[in-house]
């Protein structure tokens, strides 16, 4: 291992060590808060595969998130826990299936149409769960027992304990980061980005753009379902509002805060936004007003996310990331 590759691995490993040590030093409330934040970060990272790398602004990821949760709620019996081994794949597959159907229709459109169509289909799912009684209707559905991780009747991990739950979430998060990193560095990821930067050229080079985008959309929806499954398990409750587009838009804000051109940026964005919400909620009754103004300010003054704040504070970074180089190359080319 060369010097450089050690340096590249050092920061993530240090952060992972902090994440592992965290629940042993902070109070229980913050362990639960951290689980919630990591799950929303997972959702934001999933969304960014479509928004940042695919160039498609989707406003229905809240719906996939919610479907993951509803799937768990519907298969959990009233008095017993459900086995994670089959309920988890079921929830993820259901979210992925919804993404497949919505994606196949929405991807027939471009740009602003895509935004409106995803928004509308997301709301359709909201109404489906809100107006029908099969999953509790407008009252939402309760999950009385967290899913069980057991082999041959022996419980391996008790998700009722916040600590165990946190580590399961953390493991899922690391797996998500690994999967997304692999994806965006693979030929698939490069083709997806090529279609984002210049659709016509990518098409004339022979890339099956519709299929590439649909695959990205389905993967992204499925990961959103993973986050939704655990989020519903954590709170023991899922409401139709979870599917609504306010959730989707809030997650988009996280993506923007974290920056569009990195895999873990949206996770940072989620932590920043949730931390901000905690502070605002504690300090003012009108925290939504403040949050709205902050969102507007971020859009107007920090179009490239908080990373630019860091750059502005610490000075220009010497080693440009490959994406930046590509962006420069693109500008020169144009």
């Amino acid at each position: 291992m060369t010097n450089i590759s050690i340096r590249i691995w050092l920061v993530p490993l240090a952060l992972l060590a902090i994440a592992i040590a965290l629940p042993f030093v902070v109070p229980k409330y913050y362990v639960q808060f951290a689980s919630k934040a990591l799950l929303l970060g997972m959702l934001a990272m999933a969304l960014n595969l479509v928004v940042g790398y695919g160039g498609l602004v989707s406003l229905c990821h809240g719906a996939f998130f919610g479907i993951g949760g509803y799937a768990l709620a519907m298969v959990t019996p009233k008095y017993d826990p459900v086995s994670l081994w089959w309920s988890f794949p079921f929830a993820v597959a259901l979210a992925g299936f919804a993404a497949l159907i919505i994606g196949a229709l929405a991807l027939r459109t471009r740009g602003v149409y895509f935004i409106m169509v995803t928004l509308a289909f997301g709301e359709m799912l909201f109404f489906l769960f809100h107006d029908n009684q099969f999953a509790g209707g407008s009252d939402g559905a309760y999950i009385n027992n967290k899913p069980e991780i057991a082999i041959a009747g022996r419980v391996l991990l008790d998700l009722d304990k916040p600590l165990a739950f946190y580590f399961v979430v953390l493991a899922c998060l690391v797996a998500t980061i690994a999967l997304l990193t692999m994806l965006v560095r693979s030929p698939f990821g490069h083709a997806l980005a090529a279609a984002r930067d210049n659709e016509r050229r990518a098409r004339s080079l022979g890339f099956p753009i519709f299929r590439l985008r649909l695959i990205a959309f389905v993967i992204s929806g499925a990961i959103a379902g993973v986050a939704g499954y655990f989020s519903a398990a954590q709170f023991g409750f899922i409401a139709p509002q979870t599917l609504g587009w306010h959730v989707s838009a809030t997650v988009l804000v996280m993506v923007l805060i974290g920056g569009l051109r990195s895999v873990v940026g949206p996770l940072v964005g989620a932590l920043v936004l949730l931390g901000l919400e905690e502070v605002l909620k504690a300090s003012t009754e009108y925290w939504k007003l403040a949050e709205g103004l902050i969102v507007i300010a971020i859009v107007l003054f920090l179009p490239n996310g908080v990373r630019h704040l860091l750059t502005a504070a610490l000075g220009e970074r010497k080693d440009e990331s490959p994406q930046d180089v590509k962006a420069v190359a693109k500008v020169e080319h144009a």
Partner: protein
Amino acid sequence: MDLATFGVQLLNALQYGMVLFLVASGLTLVFGILGVINLAHGAFYMLGAYLAYGIAAATGSFWLALIGGVAIAFVVGLLLENVFIKRLYGRDHLAQVLLSFGLILVLDEVRQLLFGKDVHSVAPPQGFGGTIQLTDNLSYSVYRLAICVFCLAMAAAIFYVIQRTKIGMIVRAGAENREMTRALGISFDTVNRYVFAVGIAMAALGGIVVSPVSTVFPGMGDSMLILSFVVVVLGGIGSITGAAIGALLIGLTDTFGKVFFPSVSSILIYVLMAAVLLWRPNGILGRREV
């Protein structure tokens, strides 16, 4: 269903569709000219209804509420364009979506501060409170009929302005090819500002005219925003005629869907949208590229 009931439902569909048209044409106009997708459009519909409630409660006059609400929305629209929206021209859709989402959070909180979050109702204006007897046991509200007539008149006025005046010509040219229109010497700074303010005022107007027939509640803007989007997707962006077709289609689908298929009525309009997407991805009257 006998003929009279059918007629009543048809009138309901027409009234619903016309209000939808009023709001959605504001949205499509703003997108067509400014190239900005404004998620806060529904919030102005909601604010319009609350303004109608607030002004009518304070002055006792629905007409004052109508004029005052539209005027306030127009001025707020001018201000917002000047402060926020004009910084969005040429920015990507993501920035536009998120800035208008921020505006929704702010406007919701403003509504909370001014009117609270209670559900209200507004009395129809004097002389419009009664009903017309259609058959022995069927009647129709005068105010609902008045909404139909008013919205038809508004639609006619919009079509006249867009198709027959110089302003309309600039607006159409801008929707067709903004760069070329600018190259021909049309300054869009002023046009943009007034188009945005008019679009916002139309959303608020929609909220004001429905306030006597539907309840005024905080979530009304969200549902209207989604419906307006579906209208625009159905009709094609930037096309007023398309918005009219889309709005009437949704009015008919929703009203008769509730009558014939009550269990799935809430998702019927989305099925309609999916069908149109399969048939014409850019809307019924949409051009090929956006």
